[in-house]
Structures are given as structure tokens and as C-alpha cells.
């Protein structure tokens, strides 16, 4: 373990946030500020002139791949009504080796980016071997409409996102409100945000929320492993209940390959 101060600097960027008149708050070290050395602080002050969903992340080298990121929600009007805001669902690739270490090793080689070891939804996932970790779970009440804020915070993977048995209505793309349109899946590139509405209008049960790595848009060991079967990758469970007071334990797949066997089932009330 070696402490190299020049790898431990940072600055935090507010992705997609307009900084008209506050350019020095943009958080892009080397461009709008000097990086913050260990022990240093900086207060970033800016007006939220836009509304919707975005994220903040380190703009120092590849450091955000090591964890320096988080969601931003700016409440505002929406182009279609919904009942409940489920909040942000960050989706990312995940590496067992530090991003800055991979970056340093690869720089002189000319090789392609490494294959990601796994992917995370809202910072959690079952391990590629099927043990360890857990799926992220969201719960919806049948009949209600939910807003879900998707953000791809990955370093290299792009995702095709869908929820089994449900359609998604897009009401915002990045910080721009859209005429609502309905789709059964979305391609979410790195850094992109989509705000979608989901109507819990299907039979009460458990549904896989899927984020599949797309060919030529990054590679993921957890995806490759399953490619022969169905090219399924990472999943989050969206659980619907007949009422919020009747939550039941979510059916956890023992291994990722069991994803295919999962079918909606009634929840005991």
C-alpha cells in the first residue's frame, strides 16, 4: 500500500448542471479549478436553474469509478402525473481492481478497457458466483404510478434497461422534460439520465428489472458468463403488492442463471 498524494486529489463535478456565471463551481480540476489535495475542502455554490435528475462525480482521473459519485434530484414540474417518486436508481459496471490502477496499467498498452467483474444497481448486486451481495428491491403498490430516475454511472458499460411485464413512460431525458412516450426498454449510455413512469398495472408479484450490457458498448464478466443462456446481466427486483402494508419477502434467485425461471407470482396478503 503506497500513498501517493497526486492520486488522492479530487474535485466534484455536477453532471449536466448549468453553471452560467458560476463556472468556477463546475468542479473540473485542471480546467475550472485546481484539484483538492488530501485535507483540503471547497464549497461549491450554484443555483439550480434546471430540474430533474442528475448525478455528481469526481472529475479527477478515473476516480469516480472507485466510488466518488452520488445522485442529484431537483424537484420540479413533470409532463405527466404520477403518484410516488421512487427516487434514483444508479446503474454501473463494477471492477474488483481500482479504476485508477486499471487506468495506470492500461495507459501504455493500447489495450481495450478491461471486462467489468460485475454490475451494480443502486450500489448492490448478487455476486457473479451467485453468493454474496443482494439484489436491490423496489416495492410498488398495485394500481399506482411510480417515477423512477435512471442514471448510468458506469466507467465503460452501456445498458439496455427494462422491467419485465411493464412499459415505461419517459417524461424527462437528462434535464429536459419530454412529451411523454411509452417504451418497453431504454438504452442508457454512460452519464445519461432518464426519468420514467411505471404503472403498476400487472398481476401482483415480483418482476425483474434488467440492465443488460450491450455488445460493443463495454463488456462485463457477469454478462459474458450468461451469454450462452440468455445474455441476461444484472437485475433488480421490482415488487408489486396489493397494498403497502402487505409487503412480503422478495423471492431471491440463488444464482443469476435462475433469472430465467422467475415468473410473476401472487403475493400473499
Amino acid at each position, binding site marked *: 500500500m503506497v500513498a501517493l498524494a497526486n492520486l488522492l486529489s479530487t474535485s466534484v*463535478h455536477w453532471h449536466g448542471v448549468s453553471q452560467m456565471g458560476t463556472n468556477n463551481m463546475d468542479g473540473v480540476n485542471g480546467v475550472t479549478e485546481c484539484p483538492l489535495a*488530501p485535507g483540503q475542502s471547497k464549497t461549491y455554490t450554484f443555483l439550480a436553474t434546471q430540474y430533474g435528475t442528475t448525478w455528481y462525480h469526481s472529475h479527477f482521473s478515473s476516480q469516480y469509478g472507485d466510488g466518488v459519485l*452520488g445522485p442529484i434530484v431537483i424537484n420540479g414540474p413533470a409532463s405527466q402525473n404520477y403518484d410516488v417518486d421512487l427516487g434514483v436508481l444508479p446503474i454501473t459496471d463494477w471492477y474488483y481492481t481500482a479504476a485508477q490502477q486499471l487506468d495506470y496499467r492500461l495507459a501504455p498498452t493500447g489495450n481495450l478497457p478491461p471486462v467489468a467483474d460485475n454490475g451494480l444497481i443502486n450500489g448492490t448486486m448478487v*455476486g457473479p458466483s451467485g453468493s454474496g451481495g443482494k439484489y436491490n428491491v423496489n416495492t410498488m403498490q398495485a394500481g399506482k404510478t411510480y417515477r423512477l430516475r435512471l442514471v448510468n454511472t458506469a466507467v465503460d458499460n452501456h445498458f439496455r434497461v427494462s422491467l419485465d411485464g411493464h412499459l415505461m413512460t419517459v417524461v424527462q431525458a437528462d434535464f*429536459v422534460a419530454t412529451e411523454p412516450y411509452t417504451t418497453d426498454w*431504454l438504452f442508457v449510455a454512460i452519464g445519461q439520465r432518464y426519468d420514467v413512469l411505471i404503472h403498476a398495472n400487472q398481476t401482483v408479484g415480483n418482476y425483474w428489472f434488467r440492465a443488460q450490457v450491450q455488445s460493443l458498448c463495454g463488456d462485463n464478466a457477469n454478462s459474458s458468463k450468461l451469454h450462452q443462456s440468455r445474455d441476461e446481466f444484472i437485475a433488480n427486483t421490482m415488487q408489486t403488492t396489493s397494498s403497502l402494508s402487505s409487503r412480503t419477502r422478495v423471492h431471491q434467485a440463488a444464482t443469476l442463471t435462475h433469472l430465467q425461471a422467475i415468473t410473476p407470482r401472487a403475493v400473499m396478503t
Partner: protein
Amino acid sequence: MGSFSRYLSSFALLLHTLPQLAVARPTVDILTPITPHSAHDQSIRHSAHSSLLLSRSTNCTHSSSDRACWSDGFDISTDSETSWPNTGKTVSYNLEITNTTMSPDGTPVMVFAVNGQYPGPTITADWGDTLSVTVKNSLQYNG
């Protein structure tokens, strides 16, 4: 310089240019349906629900049954690139970055966490609020 590094560099540049693009691009007609990935053969159907984009009601209360409304003359039809509220309210957050080890999928890995968590805490504010976020770099080890 390797492709991974180049990739990151170009990505970093892209990230940096996004706010500028948002500022520089001409007025966006938000009434035009956005087709983000038509090349991907994505089936797009207009919602059966009526759009709220055309509605404008200044004397209204934002609610689950009137999401188009916001406040004081600002609503879904406002062009947020040229017009926005200023609430005069400041929302403050402290983000401290530290080294830690986490096991989000069962395998322990080194993480640079924000306030001890990954992903970092959600910053929440209202349209027109001022954000004041103090970032403290408390990183000590890179391995």
C-alpha cells in the same frame, strides 16, 4: 497513450462539455417528441395519457394530480434554459470523501466512499434553490 486512457479522457471531456452544450444550444422545442435512440429499433408509442406539456396554470398547486404545475408562474411549459425561479432558499450538504473497503456484491474492494457510503448521499433540492455543497477530501490511501 492507451485506448482506456483515451476513452477516459474523451469521456471526461464529454462530461465537461455537457453543461456548455446545454447553454449553447438553441431553444429546444419541448413539444417535439424526443426519439433518443431511433437507430436501435426501439418501439415508441405515444402515451395514452394526455401530455401536460401544453398546460399552463399559474394559480395552481403542485400535486400528484397536477404535476405540470410548479409555482409562481413556473410550470412544465417554462423554457428552463431561459427562465427559472429563484426561491432564495439555500440547501447545504457536506460530502466527505474517505478510503474504505466495501462489498457491494460480496467481494471486498477498495472504495472511495462519500460520507462512508456508495453511492454517495442523494442531493435533493427544489427548482430555483441555491445548492451549497462542501466537499472535503479526506483520502489517505490509494491502495
